């Protein structure tokens, strides 16, 4: 009995290990399949875009496609630079307007707001993320556009127009269907993304950091500046990048207010613009020649590449900030 017991025990254990091992392998295989599927999907998308856009690169050089601003389906000249410009500028405006508001709101919710106010404020801001973009678009067409045209844009023009260089941004007749309006609507749309992530990141800052600063006699503002923000910096940067990524790809609302004209790049924010996503949405259905269709698919390819570049830059930015953060927290 005494001899057989350990044997039986060990064999049972071995059996369990085998069973567990099989389950493990199945589980591992399933997760691996998921991971491979995602990579394969991305590869298929890129391959398909490359394949379907091949006609355009036979029709004209890649340099002409990327760096000229004439997009003329009638005379078969396809240059996407104005679309790239419109996409990048409107997204950056959105990012610049949204980030301070979103981070400020996040700090207020975590550090200042009375407990009973936190949930309603967070909830309201996050509700903005649930609104479909077509509704933002309609709102922008009927409310925001006229407000920009009759109030905000003339105001900006009066106050900043005379300043050299900066004034160039506010030249031309305000029409309310322009790059600036698109930037404002994008800012509103990416606000909840940046706010929600920043809030989570700020909440992750250990209380010991805060207590340490307070113990040194710091005021609340000094504590936030010295302990919270350095600690949360990488996360906030990541939040902003996620917002930017969303802005780059946003289609419907931007299409409805940006004016969709790409004749020239003047540098003024009051000029109508065109984004890559809206060019695809506007022109795909009616593209009536092989070259035209493949030029539109090539826009999708360029948009994908730009989105990837933004994500890679974001990674680099976050890694560099995380490095500094460990230094600063040691000093703090």
């Amino acid at each position: 009995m005494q001899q057989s017991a350990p044997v039986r025990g060990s064999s049972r254990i071995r059996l369990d290990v085998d069973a567990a091992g099989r389950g493990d392998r199945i589980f591992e295989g399933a997760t691996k399949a998921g991971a491979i599927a995602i990579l394969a999907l991305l590869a298929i998308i890129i391959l398909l875009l490359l394949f379907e856009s091949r006609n355009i690169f036979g029709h004209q050089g890649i340099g002409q496609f990327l760096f000229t601003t004439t997009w003329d389906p009638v005379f078969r000249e396809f240059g996407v630079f104005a679309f790239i410009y419109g996409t990048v500028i409107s997204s950056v405006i959105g990012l610049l307007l949204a980030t301070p508001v979103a981070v400020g709101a996040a700090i207020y919710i975590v550090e200042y707001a009375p407990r009973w106010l936190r949930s309603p404020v967070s909830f309201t801001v996050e509700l903005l993320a649930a609104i479909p973009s077509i509704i933002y678009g309609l709102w922008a067409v009927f409310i925001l556009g006229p407000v920009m045209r009759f109030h905000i844009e003339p105001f900006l023009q009066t106050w900043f127009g005379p300043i050299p260089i900066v004034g160039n941004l506010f030249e031309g007749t305000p029409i309310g269907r322009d790059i600036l309006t698109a930037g404002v609507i994008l800012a509103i749309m990416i606000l909840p993304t940046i706010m929600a992530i920043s809030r989570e990141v700020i909440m992750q800052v250990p209380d010991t950091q805060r207590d340490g600063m307070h113990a040194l006699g710091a005021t609340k503002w000094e504590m936030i500046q010295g302990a919270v923000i350095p600690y949360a910096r990488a996360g906030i940067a990541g939040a902003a990048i996620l917002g930017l990524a969303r802005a780059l790809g946003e289609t419907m609302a931007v299409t409805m207010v940006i004016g969709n004209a790409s004749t020239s790049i003047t540098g003024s924010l009051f000029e109508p613009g065109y984004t890559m996503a809206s060019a695809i949405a506007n022109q795909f259905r009616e593209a009536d020649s092989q070259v035209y269709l493949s030029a539109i698919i090539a826009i999708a390819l360029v948009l994908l590449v730009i989105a990837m570049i933004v994500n890679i830059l974001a990674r680099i930015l976050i890694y560099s900030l995380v490095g500094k953060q460990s230094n600063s927290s040691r000093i703090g």
Partner: protein
Amino acid sequence: MSHPRRRSLFSLDRQISRRHLLRTGAGIGLAIPASSMIAACESSNAEEDPDTLTTGDVNLTGSGATFPDPIYQLWIDEFRSVRSDVSINYQSVGSGQGKRDFINNVTDFGSSDAYLTDEEMERVPNALHIPTVIGAVAVTYNLEGYEDLQLTGETLAAIYLGDIISWDDPRIQEENPHVELPDQDIATIFRSDGAGTTWIFTDFLSKVSEDWSERVGTGTSVQWPVGFGGEKNAGVMASVQQTPGSIGYVELIYALVIGKPTIAIQNQTGNFVSPTLEAVQAAAAGYLDDLPDDLRVSITDPPDGEDSYPISGLTWMLLRREQEDRELVQALIDFIYWALTEGDEYAINLHFSPLPDEVREIAIGMLEQIEVDGETVFTRPEGA
């Protein structure tokens, strides 16, 4: 092998999935307006009649232009009371996509506001263009207190080229002696999404203005020299209403329903004509002497017809002359013949302009050309 087709793996795949989608009608619910849903319910009640239990024996699929979509859906519903065994699924995916689907043989019929280009005809040499209704583009504007404006095509082109920038430009003033036009900037507004409406509008401008045809040309999307774009008819109309001093163009139906001021345009006989259904029909009639046999023609700027409105265009159904499935083709021809001969009343109710009789005759003549195994399918009913 009588119809050799070269397809890549990708396009074949796409065709199968699209065909499947079209056949099963997946995802159609949203595309069909509520009124036709109600009509469909009514007709399904009628199916309880034992004679009509065969509903769904023949399934026809078509895709293409959005412009005639309301009238096609209505015709399809009404046609069920004529042949209840035929169900037709039309998707308004846009003329460009409709042409692609037709060329790739994904659909039984295509639909387009623009005829197939020569390049496209090479891929489907046996394509027939059967006109169904006539559309037109109305030019609307926002200039409070100024009514009954009129323009020549050349002046309209100069405005959209950015050569005329103010309403009190002598060229506009000269054409409108009855009013004193204000010193106000003109904001030009165009359709930002690719559209047959834009095609008809730019085609007209290309015909009347050499400058336009050289600098911009004709297309569903063009490189606009000035102005900004609105999404679809509604977006253009909203932009015009919000922008004092603006000018824009929309489908005639849209302008008629909304009831906004339109500009009378000068036709080749020298008359300024406002867009109405009659004036649009007159435009097609004004082209009769110049109609090619295949009806691949733009009827903008017609040479004849004192009352013709010059920014008009046909919309077509695209069919193949040689077909394989007799039952399917018979159903398709029955539908189109019925629509051409009995469908006018429905068209007028929806503000679509029916074909003039002469054009209708040519269209019916095309149905007679359709063959299965070398035999024609359609014979005109006696007395018709």
